[in-house]
């Protein structure tokens, strides 16, 4: 599971859908890895548009990284030389940082989801469907 993906998923329980607390999930006991992958500045820019930056900061902190700037970088251009450094940093954070194993907890209902073999599992037990 890419760090990026933590920004796109919330608790799957229906009664949590209205709750502010069901996103982002809280990440704990996570085993992280750095997986080198091809740098695609267009991809990073497109994703940046869709990111909820506050959630990025929050999840990064869960995972022990408290150095993420509080403001989302804006106006980056994939073809501008000056923007490459920050785009590469974002690539490394969003795409190359992966969670191999770990827990995701909903702050609204307390349900715990697992990340197994780098795939997050959002299946629900019978009493939550």
């Amino acid at each position, binding site marked *: *599971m*890419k760090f*990026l*993906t933590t920004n*796109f*998923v*919330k*608790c*799957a*329980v*229906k009664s949590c*859908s209205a709750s502010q607390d069901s*996103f982002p999930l809280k990440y704990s006991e996570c085993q992280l890895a750095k997986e080198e*992958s*091809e*740098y*695609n500045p*267009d*991809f990073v820019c*497109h*994703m940046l548009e*869709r990111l*909820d930056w506050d959630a990025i900061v929050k999840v990064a902190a869960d995972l022990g990284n408290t150095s993420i700037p509080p403001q989302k970088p804006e106006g980056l251009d994939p073809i501008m030389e000056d923007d490459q450094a920050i785009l590469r940093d974002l690539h490394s954070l969003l*795409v190359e940082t992966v969670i191999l194993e770990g827990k995701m907890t909903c702050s609204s209902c307390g*349900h*715990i989801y*697992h990340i*197994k*073999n780098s*795939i*997050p*599992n*959002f*299946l*629900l*037990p*019978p*009493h939550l*469907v």
Partner: protein
Amino acid sequence: MKDYLIYFAQAYPNFRRSEIESLAGLNGIKLDLSHHDESTPFLVVQLENDEQARKIMERSILGRGIYELWGDGNSLEEVHVNTKLRYGSEFDRYKQITFKFDFVGYMGSREKKNKFEVIESFAYLGFEGPIRMKNPDEVFVVLEQYEQPDREKSTTPLHIWFGRQVQLSARTENILDKYDLKKRKYIGTTSFDAELSLISCNIAQVNTGKVVYDPFAGTGSFLVAAANYGGYVVGSDIDHRSLRGKNEKCNIWANMKQYNSASQFLDVMTMDFTHNALRPDFQIDTIVCDPPYGVREGLKVCGVKDPTKAAHRENVVIDGEKAHLRRDFIHPKKPYELASLLDDLLSFAVQRLPVGGRLCFWMPTANDEFSTDFIPHHDSLDLLYNLDQEFNKWSRRLLVYSKRDHQSSHTSVEQAPAATVSKNISNFRARYFKGFSPSSK
């Protein structure tokens, strides 16, 4: 506007028009294909310029190539007269370029010796540039339609077109070989045919930088096809084993790498589509999928059939931990109706797609009880295409919807069509498992 000639492949003729129309639409090109005739692979269309012609052909799977049409007729003599009439004033522009001649024959062809004679007969074009077999500036092509399929092969063409090659298609450049399932690192019993998954993605208007979601991703056939067209792909499936694959060299990630698409891959997640974890404001541009219909892969959702039996299980504790919160907990599944799942899919698409965004999925239908009533419907979706693919004993169809410009809270769940869908599906399953009566073969 000028005339261009499209030469199609002999595959899925009933899908051609939707593919080319969708590619034109994707590029903002107005194109009238109402005269398309499934029985012939040649189609004359009107376009502004080469640029437009390139755009509608380069990604195409069902087209082979597109040509600026210089002249045509039922005999070479007619072709020459027509060519001089229509393009006579243009010949000079090509005087100095390098070029070659090519032949395309449908249901027949010419002997090599005869080809030279044909080329000679075009001497009036006055091209002086050297002939170059490799990478010439221009390729001039003689396309010929011979006898109809049921006759014996003939050597005299019924109709001849002459034109300048503008663009060959992805198919002609061997894309089907590249995506051939037999060469793919990771496939499974649910993997979807490469040709049809690429066609689906063209009709779905997958494009560079668009987020494409497959909620029933399985082994990821639509994810690799969508990534081929520049899509940023994300998938989910209730079955974590198919998402995980066998090992590092044999899984969805390995496929993405094989096709050089790893940098467009978002992620896959284990998820019951009906309890979706993608946050509602995460915009999805396109949905392409092959929902489960119970033939090979049981359609299931999380839950238990009889909740009373499972009551209080949430209190079970193992090693001081709630059982259902443990990493190795096995989530019980129960059967679900395809009709309901398709309604869920349509509602989801309405919530997540932008206006004009496409939902494209395959569904089964039994051959001899076809009725258009069986097509799921939603007030906020326009049904653009309904395309049948016939097998021996059954058929399936590709349904393509586009999100409408108005919001509506109605879904077909409360409406009659859902019931008809349900009837069709259970009917289909029952019939599939029972086998077919001889009359339906």
